[in-house]
């Protein structure tokens, strides 16, 4: 009997506890402990992914109790992919953020690593679990840790941003919990597969409809789907860099994963698209979300804030794709979970390097960055191309699937919004490049000899290597999109 599925989640938890102990005994130990914990977790996730691709769904019974009685981990292709994504992003970010954690949270680094690990535990647990209530508990772990992390950021504004995040986060999680309560009332079970089996015979029930609406609204709040997005920009842009680099790519994506999981595994395609007919309404909402996110991003003067609005725009893509109700849409949404996590991660790594050198990332402060930090900017350019959707990068392929799906369904407004938002992203990033490229410091121009001396001030090597690695992975993943779709996504959707 091998225990890899549970090791993915438990090793970071153990590491978090030991790091917490180390905070009181020998602070310097906490970083290596965290690193080891996440390394084992990533390794286990890789093992599980290989196993699932080779031989199908893995079920793991906690405490040995059979599913509806106890809690089970049910890891299929989708889970395994997201688990691999989450653990490796968290691991790479931990390597990259040693220096910036030291810079930003000087005397509290050990506690910071503990909270960081608990956050990752939450995300991994949410992804792996096959139990509706266990999902809630783990959502709460991720939320609590992210409240803490956000509050550690900007001294003046972060506490208020975090408190608002708590209020909205609690409403979201409570709605989900109420939804689970209604489902429990109807089915008497909490295991996803079991609930789904029992729901087959209760398609018309008002209890199930209420449960479905509650769960979806709760998750939309948690993932910052457009009208419910107000908490996200402040929370993400005021948090410490080491944290915003992991929360921005992962948190919303994992919430999208949960939404897809509930739609496919618990409520089922037939219920959502044949009984309820909500598809086109939600696709319209997603269209509005995309446009609103893109337009609000256009109005921002701070690089970090601008990126947070682009995240809101990307959420619109994935929700729209998932609710398209056809296989292409779902493929696009799932592929975009992977791609968007990677490109947001690459983007925030680059931004993190800039923040490490320049405290304030208002667009006006970025002048001359191409000269000062050439490698970081190269990473930024690649990530930006991917977000815009330039062909060899991975962002292009998922957008392609989404557009095809929109045409198949006849949701032309969605396709149009997708293209318009890509254009807006292009405008946004070329504006950033323009500012970064031209050194508008008037002093340099006065010398008149054409080539002002530019000193290269790059971020530490560890940050650069990770940043470069992730940026290159955008192209690699892009080139292997077909393989990913054929080995992971399509077999999952069958």
């Amino acid at each position: 009997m091998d225990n890899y599925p549970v090791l993915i989640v438990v090793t970071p938890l153990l590491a978090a506890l030991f790091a917490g102990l180390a905070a009181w005994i020998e602070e310097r130990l906490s970083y290596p402990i965290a690193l080891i914990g996440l390394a084992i977790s990533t390794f286990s996730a890789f093992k599980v992914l290989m196993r699932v691709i080779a031989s199908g769904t893995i079920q793991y019974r906690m405490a040995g109790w059979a599913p509806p009685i106890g809690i089970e981990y049910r890891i299929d292709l989708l889970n395994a992919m997201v688990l691999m994504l989450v653990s490796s992003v968290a691991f790479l970010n931990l390597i990259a953020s040693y220096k910036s954690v030291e810079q930003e949270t000087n005397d509290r680094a050990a506690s910071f690593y503990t909270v960081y690990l608990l956050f990752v535990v939450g995300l991994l647990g949410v992804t792996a679990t096959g139990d509706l209530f266990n999902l809630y508990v783990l959502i709460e772990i991720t939320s609590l840790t992210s409240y803490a992390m956000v509050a550690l950021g900007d001294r003046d504004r972060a506490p208020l941003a975090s408190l608002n995040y708590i209020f909205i986060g609690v409403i979201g999680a409570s709605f989900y919990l109420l939804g689970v309560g209604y489902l429990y009332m109807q089915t008497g079970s909490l295991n996803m597969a079991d609930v789904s089996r029992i729901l087959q015979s209760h398609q018309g029930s008002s209890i199930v409809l209420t449960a479905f609406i509650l769960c979806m609204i709760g998750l939309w709040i948690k993932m910052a789907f457009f009208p419910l997005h107000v908490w996200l920009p402040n929370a993400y842009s005021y948090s410490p860099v080491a944290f915003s680099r992991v929360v921005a790519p992962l948190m919303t994506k994992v919430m999208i994963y949960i939404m897809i999981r509930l739609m496919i595994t618990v409520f089922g395609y037939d219920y959502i698209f044949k009984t309820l007919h909500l598809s086109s309404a939600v696709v319209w909402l997603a269209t509005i979300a995309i446009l609103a996110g893109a337009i609000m991003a256009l109005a921002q003067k701070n690089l970090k804030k601008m990126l947070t609005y682009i995240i809101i725009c990307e959420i619109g893509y994935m929700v729209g794709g998932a609710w398209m109700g056809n296989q292409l849409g779902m493929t696009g949404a799932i592929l975009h979970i992977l791609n968007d996590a990677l490109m947001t991660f690459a983007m925030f790594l680059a931004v993190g390097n800039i923040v490490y050198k320049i405290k304030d990332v208002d667009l006006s402060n970025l002048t001359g960055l191409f000269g000062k930090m050439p490698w970081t900017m190269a990473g930024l350019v690649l990530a930006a191309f991917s977000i815009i959707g330039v062909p060899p990068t991975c962002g292009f392929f998922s957008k392609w699937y989404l557009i095809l799906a929109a045409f198949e369904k006849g949701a032309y407004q969605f396709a149009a919004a997708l293209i318009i938002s890509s254009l807006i992203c292009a405008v946004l990033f070329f504006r950033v490049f323009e500012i970064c490229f031209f050194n508008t410091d008037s002093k340099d121009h006065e010398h008149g000899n054409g080539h002002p001396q530019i000193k290269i001030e790059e971020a530490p090597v560890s940050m650069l290597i990770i940043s470069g690695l992730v940026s290159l992975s955008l192209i690699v993943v892009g080139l292997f999109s077909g393989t990913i779709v054929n080995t992971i996504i399509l077999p999952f959707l069958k």
Partner: protein
Amino acid sequence: MKFLGFIVVCLTGALLLYGTGQFPAWGDPGSPASTHLSNYYIEKTVEQTQVPNIVTAVLADYRGFDTMFETSVIFCAGLTCFLLLRDFTEKKERFYRHRPTGVILHVKDSEKVLKVGKEFEHIDKDFVPSDLIIKTVCRILIPFIQIYALYVVAHGDFSPGGGFQGGVIFGSSLILLAISYDLKTLVERIKEKVLGIFAAVGVLIYVGIATICMPMGGNFLNYGMLAPLLPGDPRHVRALGMLGVEIGVGLAVMAVMAIIYINIVSEGRHDEGL
């Protein structure tokens, strides 16, 4: 905002009530919620785990995985309060009271606590004379509260109770000490470091017991595999495993309650407060 909020609230309420429309009658023993899993738990628990308190059995065994994360949530809350509020810069103002006369000395800008004789006492900024009756009553009560807390933890398998409840009761006895004397008394008795270590060790006991089951050949959390390690009747091994994790939970909850209280009332300074 108020009007919008009112509309949102009414819509939510209407949705929830719409959902309750088809609910089975209240207390109906035949409703799906009360038959599907619930019957299994009620009928099989004693046979499978030897624990008469079904809630404890479901909490620490059938759904023990939830409870492990729930303990982590508590740990996380304590850590968060510490991380957000703890302020290691000491205040430089101190107040000393001359006991016989009641004269208060206000020392500004002193680096450390002055060594003072028996006739002086180090007091809070807002001096409240300590009440003999309150102090005496609390001094008598606190040991009993703590023994009761231990009883609630240890007897959680057989009667209402368990790690969380016992831990909270124990934590409240510490808080009572801080309220009836002052915060300094509590902080001197139980050092911050000890509380921090207790919180982590408590959760570690839980996760540790669960993890040991894996090298022993079972799934995570499968207490049944611990039989070779534990004395007594092997049928009771699950009950013993549950007791072990409950002790861990109690320890963590007790420490975290005290950490949250101390940090919030003293705004992270650990010198004076409620």
